């Protein structure tokens, strides 16, 4: 898309398109990455509730893989994850390892 000139901007930088954050890749900031260990997952959906972005995909009330396009690696999901019998279903791994 050709960048717009100053005459074509909305007053106050107001964004009038709902959900446009979907187009903005924020996952590139990540230095740690959450990894899902499905066998330890009890599908409590706590990670989906706590994730401050849209990085945990969900369908029919169950979580699926991470969407790393939006995941910033904050680690909140890993912290909140109760896992199964003391074994976490999300662990953080350093990127590039």
């Amino acid at each position: 898309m050709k960048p717009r000139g100053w005459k074509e901007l909305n007053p106050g930088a107001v964004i009038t398109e709902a959900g446009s954050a979907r187009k903005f890749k924020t996952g590139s900031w990540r230095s740690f990455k959450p990894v899902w260990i499905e066998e330890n997952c009890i599908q409590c959906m706590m990670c989906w509730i706590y994730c401050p972005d849209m990085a945990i995909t969900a369908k029919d009330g169950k979580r699926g893989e991470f969407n790393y396009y939006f995941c910033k690696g904050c680690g909140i999901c890993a912290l909140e994850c109760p896992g199964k019998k003391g074994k976490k279903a999300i662990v953080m791994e350093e990127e590039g390892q």
Partner: protein
Amino acid sequence: MSASRVVAVTGNESVAEALRQVNPDVSAAYPITPATDIMQRFTHYVSNGKVKTEMILVESEHSAMSACIGASAAGGRVMTATSSQGLALMWEELFIASGYRLPIVMSLVNRALSAPINIHCDHSDGMGARDCGWIQLWSENAQEAYDNTIQAFRIAENMDIRLPAMVCMDGFIISHSIERMEYLDDDAVRNYVGDFKQLYPLLDIAHPVSYGPLILSDYYMEYKRAHAEVMSKVKHVVLDAASEFERISGRKYGLFEDYRLDDAEIGLVVLNSAAGTSKDVVDAFRDRGIKAGLLKPRLFRPFPYEEVGEALKHLKAVCVLDRADASGASYGPLFMEIASSVSPYSPRPVLLNKIYGLGGRDYLPGHAESVLSELAEVAATGKVRTFKEYIGVRE
């Protein structure tokens, strides 16, 4: 012209009355001398059901301006009032209000900034906020403070500009002194400001919008360029608002007041209440056959430098009186505007700068007399003793 009531009121009272008549949707404020009285009176109107305003009492001016920003983005007509440190505490929010293009109206009762702490008038608060993207209207007396407050809503909310506006008047000298003035009818004021028109209201959930996106180097400069363009339209909006206001009030306003300037050879440039004192002295000089005049800026932001330059270019000598010191700068803040306004002309007036009245120090007719006498001397001889000095200060 609509009917009016003649009253004897303080500047603060007159602004509170204007706000009652406008009846804004939301106000958020925190008390600070000398502006406290405006919101104290206004909250009485709220408590007594005289206005329908949602009044938010907050814990600081930072919160006051933040709440005003939220309410304005939500889609309401919003106003507040402050002074001095209160405005200073709003500092970062002022830029957000203007950057979001929110038409908030704020009464600024001018007071010196700390330290040393002082509650009396000077213009250091307003001058400190002059470049924050707001419109600034300055007022000589209670009548002008009232009239400018009403006009500010219409100017700020104009769909071509949508900018916040600050209406300044001198603390204590005007805010707490009783003067004779005229109030307009409630209906006249309400018809004049009209119904509030929303632009991108957050509460319109059928049309969701986001305020405050991160704009980095790829677009920030384009937004600032757009803001400059909007600023350039303000003077036309101000003049339109003034001519419509004259129709209902009979009182004439422009971008500035030019007082006996047409054939003047020497002149003063001065803001707010000191202009009243100075005009009397200009008259006395005229009676003695000395061609003196005065220019009192009204719209200080955006500064109408082309019109001001045009109005002053024929004078021989001009003194700009600054009630604020731009610490460490070449000259006072008003002087720098005037100097750049006349700079394209040749010949142009010799310009002097006097800093006066800081922290409420009295400005007396004697000060205007000695400045005008000095200007007459400069005009006659072309010799300047000093370009910049402080007057009314003990050595």
